[in-house]
């Protein structure tokens, strides 16, 4: 082993040893750092052999965690979601009525899918509620990954334990498993496809499976996206929700 090789190994090792859990979370955040997002997406809810498709237009502002979703598939045409911070309102065009979703309801599957409102709303406060540790390294889908284990520090953490497979190079979380206190696996989310937008690797195709309902899964596909386009803050108001 020559000196050069040794140094390489050392530096690699140093790189590995130098990085810890919180650091990885921080690096992952880079991939979510944008001021605004405008996208069109579809959500395929697959129950047994039946596929239901929800299509939507999304606009969002990172500041204040604000977003507005408008459904465009025929059955839900005109239905809108407005998220402001931790609050969610749904507008139903047929009843011309706005319903506020809170408490338990936020944990329910959105539009009959395996994605809960809470999942959709979750802000990046993982480190507040979870202790993070690197618990291994694995090759996942051909990508060299850290295996990250998050354990709830407080009782009100949504999941007792979460395990993430985070690519070492680009800090993309390819897979996440959530567990209950009993040790039961509740949810599995997998990123199926990413797209590079500027400096950001954006997961454009994500699959989610509720492990308590094994016959169903949800695939969320972003069809077109643009980041950091200037957005009018007036988009995210109750008045706009009703319009």
């Amino acid at each position, binding site marked *: 082993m020559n000196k050069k090789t040794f140094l390489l190994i050392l530096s690699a090792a140093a790189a590995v040893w130098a990085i810890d859990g919180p650091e990885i979370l921080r690096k992952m955040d880079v991939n979510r750092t944008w001021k605004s997002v405008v996208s069109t997406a579809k959500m395929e809810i697959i129950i047994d052999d039946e596929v239901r498709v929800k299509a939507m237009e999304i606009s969002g502002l990172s500041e204040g965690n604000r977003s507005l979703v408008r459904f465009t598939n025929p059955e839900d045409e005109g239905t809108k979601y407005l998220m402001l911070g931790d609050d969610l309102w749904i507008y139903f065009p047929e009843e011309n009525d706005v319903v506020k979703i809170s408490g338990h309801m936020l944990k329910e599957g959105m539009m009959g899918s395996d994605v809960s409102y809470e999942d959709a709303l979750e802000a990046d406060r993982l480190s507040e509620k979870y202790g993070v540790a690197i618990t291994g390294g694995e090759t996942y889908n051909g990508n060299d990954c850290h295996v990250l284990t998050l354990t709830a520090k407080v009782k009100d953490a949504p*999941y*007792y334990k979460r395990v993430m497979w985070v690519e070492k190079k680009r800090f993309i979380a390819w897979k996440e498993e959530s567990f*209950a206190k009993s040790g039961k696996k509740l949810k599995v989310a997998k990123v199926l496809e990413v797209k590079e937008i500027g400096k950001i690797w954006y997961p454009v195709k994500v699959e989610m499976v509720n492990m*308590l*309902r*094994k*016959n169903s899964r949800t695939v969320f596909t972003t069809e077109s996206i643009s980041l950091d386009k200037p957005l009018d803050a007036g988009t995210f108001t109750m008045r706009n929700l009703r319009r």
Partner: protein
Amino acid sequence: MLLKIALRNIRRHKRRTVFSAITIAVGMLFFIAMDSIMSGMDRGAIDNMVALKTGAIRLQTPEFAAEQDALPLRGGIEGCDSLRAAVLRDKRVKGVTGRTRFIGQMSIYTDMKPIIGTVISPATDSTVFSLTDYIEGAYFSNDNEREIILGKKLAEEMGLSVGGWVTLYALTRYDAHNADDFKVVGLLNTTDPVLNGSGVFISDRSADSFLDLEGLVTDMMVAVHRRVNIRDFIREVKAAQAALRSQYPDLTSQTFLEQEAGFFEIAKTKRAFGFMFLIIILLIAAVGIFNTVLMSVYERIREIGVLRAFGFTQRELTRLFLLEGLVTGIFGAALGLALGTLLNLYLVAYGYPLDKIAGDSMGDLPIWGTIYGEWNLAVWGAVTLFAVMTATVAGYIPARKAGTMEIISTLRFF
């Protein structure tokens, strides 16, 4: 002589009289049976409700009561054990137990079903509720295993039986997702179809870890001694509630009537509809009587002419036919009462097997199994009076007509 003519006429037209009387009797029989069954159903529904769901009175903190539609695991009652002991000192109170409801889902992996689960205290629950009377399998044991008792119909839908395992998913008191496996120890086959279709019960011990309850109890359920007469029972419950209110001003209380106000509202409407239905039956009987008396008038038009030719006044003629109607009515009512009594004796003693007769077609009834009849003497009196009056009035109209007819057109000399 009037009475003699009336009675003889009734005897002479035996078939017609018997037909009228049977019409009245059948109308009354229907009325009595329906009223008895309806009262029985009401009583049965109330007994069910109190024994399985609501207790007589429910105590909550105002904080929880305000949000209870969402069933949060917050706003529990402090010092449950001492409260229980204190409430039990009231002579009217039969038992007290804590219950906590939670929203969750039940999974057998191929299917997931939203549920409202109830956390019960096995030690005290049976002082208020009668779940144990209806259990197939076993009640909660003292094992450390997580055990669950399910409504039988729910279990059947999910393909579960005693000894099977089911995964319960819910949010803990701290809104963390949790899921765990529970062993089905018992199935509930109660007289309340709603409970059979959606009942999910776990013990406070397993709930403590599953839901992080830390002893939280949101509902204190109070049972009041049963009374045979429902009005007495309601009076006792209200008195007990008033006592609780003055003793515990910082707790809110709701009687079963208040808890299930919607049900009682609907029951009232149903009752009104049922009553209308019965009135229609009696009206049909009245039309039948009307018709027979009218027939009798036309058949005896010549006779009426003779009576008038001999100086009968209109009033006397009218009285004659009224008398006939009255006698027919009394006869029919007596028959109806006799048959009604017999039928009701049967209904009270052996009941009416609603489940066997209705099958699955009446799933939203708040009661199941066998319904027992009730004695409702005021209603009987009213219906008897109504039957007799109907028969009399039904006789009156054609009688008046007969009395005012041109005599000549009744006699037809030419």
